[in-house]
């Protein structure tokens, strides 16, 4: 379980996170929803110790993040995390060199699934394919937790469908996933849990099926209620 407890962060004078708390379970897809600039990406960076927080605590399976944690949790940001001049195969080699949890068979499987050529240079890939490679680098790690920042933004519809398909496959099963988005439509049926965020605070945290069952509301209904109400 990933626990974010009362996390506060200031950037200059601006308070970006005003005491954010939520949890994300293993085996579930948790979606952080909010318009751009409300601090979703900052939360992910904070979980990965890529940016300091002013107060609060973040625990992964009950412990603070350590270097060993990076075999258990990985972050897929919205830009590719490998140098442009690398070939896909070289990027694979880099991952294999440093991560025990790198799964080369799975990487090959994903390469075929996404119809990518490992001899291509990252710099020469289309936007959609770059996003797929970036996704692949995270998915081919046998980690328990995956953080994905806006995996659907700015790419074509077919790439989007392919990526959405990943969520219903064994590639995600049993892992804990946190994804951020500002547009829920593509993935409403894929997610387990929603954390609505606005201006650095959690407005509501709910289980999607429970809300449908008990209140007969869609995620968008709840959003409308929370943001307008």
């Amino acid at each position, binding site marked *: 379980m990933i626990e974010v407890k009362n996390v506060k962060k200031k950037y200059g004078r601006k308070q970006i996170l005003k005491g954010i708390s939520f949890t994300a379970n293993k085996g579930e897809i948790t979606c952080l929803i909010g318009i751009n600039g409300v601090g979703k990406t900052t939360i992910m*960076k904070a979980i*990965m*110790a*890529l*940016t*300091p927080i002013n107060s609060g605590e973040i625990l992964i399976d009950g412990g603070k993040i350590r*270097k*060993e*944690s*990076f*075999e258990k949790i*990985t*972050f897929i*940001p919205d*830009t*590719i*995390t*490998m*140098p*442009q001049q690398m070939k896909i195969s070289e990027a694979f080699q*880099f991952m294999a*060199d*440093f*991560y*025990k949890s790198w799964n080369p068979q799975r990487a090959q499987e994903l390469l075929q699934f996404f119809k990518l050529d490992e001899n291509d240079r*990252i710099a020469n890939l289309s936007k959609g394919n770059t996003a797929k490679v970036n996704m692949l680098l995270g998915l081919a790690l046998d980690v328990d937790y995956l953080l994905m920042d806006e995996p659907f933004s700015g790419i074509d519809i077919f790439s989007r469908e392919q990526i959405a398909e990943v969520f219903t496959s064994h590639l995600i099963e049993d892992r804990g996933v946190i994804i951020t988005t500002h547009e829920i439509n593509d993935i409403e049926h894929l997610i387990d849990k929603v954390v609505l965020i606005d201006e650095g605070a959690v407005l509501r945290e709910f289980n999607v099926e429970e809300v449908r069952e008990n209140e007969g509301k869609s995620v968008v209904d709840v959003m409308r209620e929370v943001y307008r109400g």
Partner: protein
Amino acid sequence: MKNYLKLVHFEVNRFFKMYLIVVGLVIVSQLIGAVVESKEYLKNIKRTLLREQYSFSEYLQEGYQAEPFSQFLNSGWVILSVFMCVVILMLYVFFIWYREWFAKNTFIYRLLTLPTSRLTIYFAKLTAIMLLVFGFIALQIILLPIEHQLVYWIIPADYRIDILLTEAFNFVSLGGLYPSTFIEFILLYGIGLMFVAVLFTAILFERSYRLKGIFFAIVYSVLSCVVFISPVVLHFVSEGYFYPLEILSLLLVTGAIVLGCAIWLATYLLKYKITV
């Protein structure tokens, strides 16, 4: 340790193409320089003979010969190429960090989330820089005998005063690079290492606190300098109370302190303060 070596290999590899280009430039410019300077030297002699209406034997008697090889070593061909290497390495000290942030990609995310201590990245980059420095120095060691041969091959023996190759290493433009004793070696490259480490830590200050960080970085760098050179200051203030060797030892101590602080601060910044 294995990850450290892999990272060093990776870092050196990334700069290698650029490095080879610079190496090529150095070789070409110094070799051309050796030829051009030698020809120029001969031309000068001929001009002198013509002007002064000397015969060659008179010329020799007047003691007009010079040391063409040392002239070459002090020419722009050598000085500028050495200077170019220094400048490029200085720039790369910054670029080796900033390239991880400022590109279309965000490789820093990957580096900082490797399942290895973040200090390893720092040491790998530090090692890479030092290796590049040693590479240039080795290149110069290889180039000198070749140039020595070249110059003496173009200029006939009668027209020149020879210097030994070993003397060439003490020349102004190169003298600093080739220490003759172990202590000097430690001091020279130790200071180099410390200097790069302090710059790295200053860069990490900026990367951690951004605008405010620039201020911290400057204060930190100045403080480091002051601590390091304090024995020298002490030497002047005490008006020679200490033996030079004592001052030297003190410099080693303050250097070690500055280096230690740089590493300790880098550990802290990378672990708790760095921001992508």
